[in-house]
C-alpha cells in the first residue's frame, strides 16, 4: 500500500580560505584556497564527485533502466551546480541524465543554501528565484515542491510556499511535533488551503544514513531484506514512507567498503517483492494522498542533531553576530549594484560558514562530530569575519 518517496539532498559551499587580517583591502578573493588546502573547493568537489556523486548516479541510472516504475527525488544547491559546471561537467551530465528519465524530480530551495528565510524575505525570494533559473537552464524543469536549507521549517515558510505556488513542502517528522501521529501520512500546514506537508521518517531514513555501518547498532548489518521487512511492517498504517537523506550518505558518510552501494542497488528489488510497495516522486505523493491532519510547527524545526533545531548554526555569539552582520548590510550591498560584490555577499550567506563556527561538539568533548575544513570553530570565524570586513570595505560600508 505505501509508496516510498526517496529524496537525496546535496550541496557544496564555497569554503573561505585562510583569509587573514593582512589580506583585507588587498585581496578580494575569498574562496580560492590553493590546491592541497582543506578549504580548496575544487579539490573537495572532485573528491566528492568521485567518491559519491558518480558512483551513486551510476547505480541510480541502472535502477531507473531496470525498473520502469522506480522514481526518486533530488535537490542540488546553486553553489554546487555552479562548481560542477566549472570543475566537473561530466558529473553534472550524470545528474542531467537522471532528470531526463522523467522519473527524478528536483526540489526547490535557495541558490546559496542559506537560512535567509529567517533573516530577510526579500533576499530569500531572490535566492529561490535564482535557483529556479539555474534548474531551468541546466535541467529544463521547474521545481514544484520546496525543501529549505537543512529542512529548516516553520509554519510561515509553508504559507510562503503556498503563495509561491508550490504543491508541497518537506520537513522533519519530529516526534515532539507529531505526538501520536505518524510521519507516514501527508499533512497540511496551518493557515493554508492546498499545500501538502511531507514529513521525513527519520527512523528508517537514519537507519541508512547514519547507522548503516555502525557495528554497535542492533540492526547491524543492515541488509536489504531486513530494511524491506521494516518498511513492510508499516503496511496498513502508512501511505508514504519518506526517506530523506544526504546524497553523500552514499560513498562519503558511508564508505563504499561498507557495502552501501550494493545496498542501494538491491533495495528496490527487495521492496518490489511486496507488490504493495512502490516509489513515487514528491509531487505525485502530494497529489495522491489527502492531508490527514494539520501539523503545526510555530518554532523552527530542522533535520539536524538530537535537538532538531538551528543550534548548530545559531547557537553561539560568533554565529549570531556573523548572521546579524551579514543581513544588517543587505540594503547597502544591494545598492552597490555590483554583481561580483553581491555574489560574494551571497556566497558568505551559505549556512556552512556559520556551521563551521559551531562549538557545541567541542563542549561535549565530541570533537569527531565536527565536520569542518577548519581546525576549530574559531579559525572558521576569523576567516569569515576578515572576509566580511573586506566585503564591507568594498561596499563602502566601513
Amino acid at each position, binding site marked *: 500500500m505505501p509508496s516510498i518517496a526517496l529524496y537525496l539532498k546535496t550541496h557544496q559551499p564555497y569554503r573561505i580560505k*585562510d583569509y*587573514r*587580517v*593582512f589580506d583585507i583591502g588587498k585581496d578580494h578573493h575569498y574562496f580560492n584556497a590553493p590546491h592541497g588546502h582543506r578549504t580548496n573547493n575544487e579539490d573537495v568537489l572532485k573528491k566528492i564527485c568521485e567518491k559519491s556523486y558518480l558512483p551513486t548516479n551510476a547505480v541510480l541510472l541502472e535502477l531507473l533502466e531496470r525498473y520502469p516504475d522506480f522514481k526518486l527525488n533530488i535537490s542540488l544547491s546553486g553553489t554546487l551546480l555552479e562548481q560542477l559546471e566549472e570543475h566537473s561537467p561530466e558529473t553534472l551530465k550524470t545528474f542531467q541524465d537522471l532528470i531526463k528519465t522523467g522519473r527524478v524530480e528536483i526540489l526547490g530551495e535557495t541558490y546559496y543554501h542559506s537560512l535567509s528565510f529567517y533573516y530577510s524575505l526579500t533576499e530569500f525570494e531572490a535566492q529561490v528565484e535564482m535557483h529556479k533559473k539555474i534548474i531551468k537552464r541546466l535541467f529544463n524543469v521547474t521545481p514544484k515542491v520546496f525543501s529549505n536549507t537543512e529542512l529548516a521549517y516553520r509554519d510561515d515558510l509553508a504559507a510562503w510556499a503556498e503563495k509561491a505556488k508550490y504543491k508541497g513542502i518537506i520537513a522533519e517528522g519530529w516526534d515532539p511535533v507529531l505526538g501520536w501521529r505518524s510521519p507516514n501520512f501527508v499533512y497540511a500546514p496551518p493557515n493554508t488551503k492546498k499545500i501538502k506537508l511531507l514529513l521525513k521518517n527519520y527512523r528508517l531514513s537514519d537507519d541508512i544514513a547514519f547507522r548503516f555501518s555502525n557495528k554497535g547498532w542492533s540492526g547491524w548489518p543492515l541488509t536489504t531484506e531486513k530494511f524491506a521487512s521494516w518498511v513492510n511492517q508499516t503496511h496498513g498504517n502508512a501511505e508514504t514512507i519518506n526517506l530523506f537523506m544526504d546524497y553523500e550518505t552514499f560513498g562519503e558518510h558511508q564508505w563504499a567498503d561498507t557495502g552501501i552501494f550494493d545496498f542501494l542497488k538491491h533495495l528496490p528489488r527487495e521492496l518490489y517483492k511486496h507488490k504493495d510497495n512502490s516509489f513515487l516522486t514528491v509531487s505525485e505523493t502530494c497529489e495522491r494522498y489527502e492531508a490527514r491532519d494539520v501539523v503545526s510547527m510555530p518554532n523552527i524545526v530542522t533535520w539536524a542533531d538530537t535537538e532538531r533545531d538551528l543550534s548548530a548554526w545559531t547557537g*553561539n*555569539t*560568533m554565529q*549570531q*553576530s*556573523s548572521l546579524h552582520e551579514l543581513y544588517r548590510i543587505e540594503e547597502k550591498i544591494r545598492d552597490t549594484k555590483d554583481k561580483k560584490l553581491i555574489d560574494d555577499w551571497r556566497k558568505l550567506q551559505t549556512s556552512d560558514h556559520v556551521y563551521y563556527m559551531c*562549538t557545541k561538539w*567541542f*563542549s561535549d*568533548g565530541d*570533537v569527531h562530530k565536527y565536520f569542518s575544513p577548519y*581546525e*576549530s*570553530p*574559531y*579559525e572558521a*570565524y*576569523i576567516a569569515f*569575519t*576578515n572576509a566580511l570586513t573586506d566585503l564591507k570595505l568594498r561596499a563602502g560600508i566601513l
Partner: protein
Amino acid sequence: MSSPKRVLMIGWEYPPHHSGGLGVACQGMAHALADRQHYVCFALPKKMPISDTKVTLLYPNKKSGKVGGKEISILRELYNPYIEPSRYHSFREQSKDILDPMFVPGTLKECVELYGVELSRELLENPIDVDIIHAHDWLCFPAAVAVKKLLQKPFIAHIHATEFDRSGGQGANPYVYQQEKLGMEESAHIITVSELVKRTVINKYGIPPEKITVIHNGNTDLASKNESIFDNLITFKEKGYSIVLYAGRITLQKGVEYFVHAAKKALEVNPKIIFIIAGTGDMERYIIELVNNLGISSNFMFTGYYTLDDMASLLKHASLFVMPSVSEPFGIVPLEAITKDVPVIISKQSGVSEILHHALKVDFWDTDKIANQILAVIHHPPLHKVLREEGRRQVQDITWDKAASKIHHVYNSVL
C-alpha cells in the same frame, strides 16, 4: 584492586618554593591523590619552610636546616629544575661565599646523587611502609633508583619534560640524558604529561610505547592575595589599548622571539596594543634588543621576575595570553589564564593543545598567523566572548582529580 595506596613521591621542589610548573604540578597531583584517600609521603632534597596538611613532607638532608632566610632564595635558584649543570656550576662559584659549604655539593650531578644517598639513609633510619615509588623528572631519578633497590618496590617515572624539551634543540646534556634513560629503564611504568612527551620518550630514549601512559596535568586555581599590582595598566586601557601577555621563562624553548615578531606584524595593523613579557631567562637581553631594533619598544613592557600575585594582576588586565613555545611538554599557564577569563593562543607544539579545544592554536613559527589571531581576538568581541566562556567551561573539567584517578590505574597495573 582499587584500594588506596601508600605512595612515596620523590620530588625536587614544592610550592611556594618552586621555580616553574613542576612544583605546582607535583602539589596538585599529591593533593588529588591524598583526597582520594591515598597516603602520600612527599620527599624533597632539602628542608624548605613549607606546611602542608594533606601530604607528609620528608626532608632527607637535615643539614639544610642551618640555612636561614636570605640564603634560601639563592638555594632555590641552585635547585632550579630548569638549570643546566654547567650553568649551575658557574652560579655556585659566584655565590660560594654566602653558601654553607657543608650543604652545597660541588656540582648538580653530585647534588642529584646525594639526594639518593640521603634519602636512602633517611629511610633506613626511619623506615616507612609504602607500596609504590613515584618520582618526578630526571633530578629525582637517581634517588628513585636507589630507593627502589632499598625498598624493593616498583617505581613510576613521571616525565614532565625531557632534556630535549629543556635544551630547545641546542643539544641534550649527555649526563642528564643518561640519568633520564636509566630512570625510564629502571621504572616499572612511565607517565608522561602529553602525547608530545610520549613520542620523545619513544623516539629518543628507545622506550616501548606500551610502557608509557599519557596523563595530562590538571588545572590548579592559584589563589592570589593582591591583584592590584598592575592597576596602572588601566591608564592604557582607558586610552583604547589592548593588552597582550606572554608569561614564562625567556628562553629559546619558549619561543618568545616569535611573540615579538608577531607583535611587530600586529602593530602594523593596529598600533593600540601593549605587549607584556613577564619573566626572566637567558634570552632576556636578546629579546629586549630585538624589540628595540624592530622599533616597537614603546608598545612593550618587561616585568622581569614575577610572583603569583603579579601574574594574577597581569591576567586581570590582559585581553589575551600567548604561549608560542617551540616545545612545551605540557604548559599549565594557558589553563591559569583561561581560569581568569583570558583567552589564549597556544602553539601546536605544546602538550596542553592536545586537550584544550577552546583556544586558538598555531605553529610557533607562523608569526603571520599569530598576528592574525591576536588581531581577531582584539577586534571581534564575539570571538573573545566564546573563547572565554567555552574555555572556562572546559578548564573546569581539566582537574587533578581526573588525573589522580588515572594515576591510580597505573599504580594498580604495576602492583
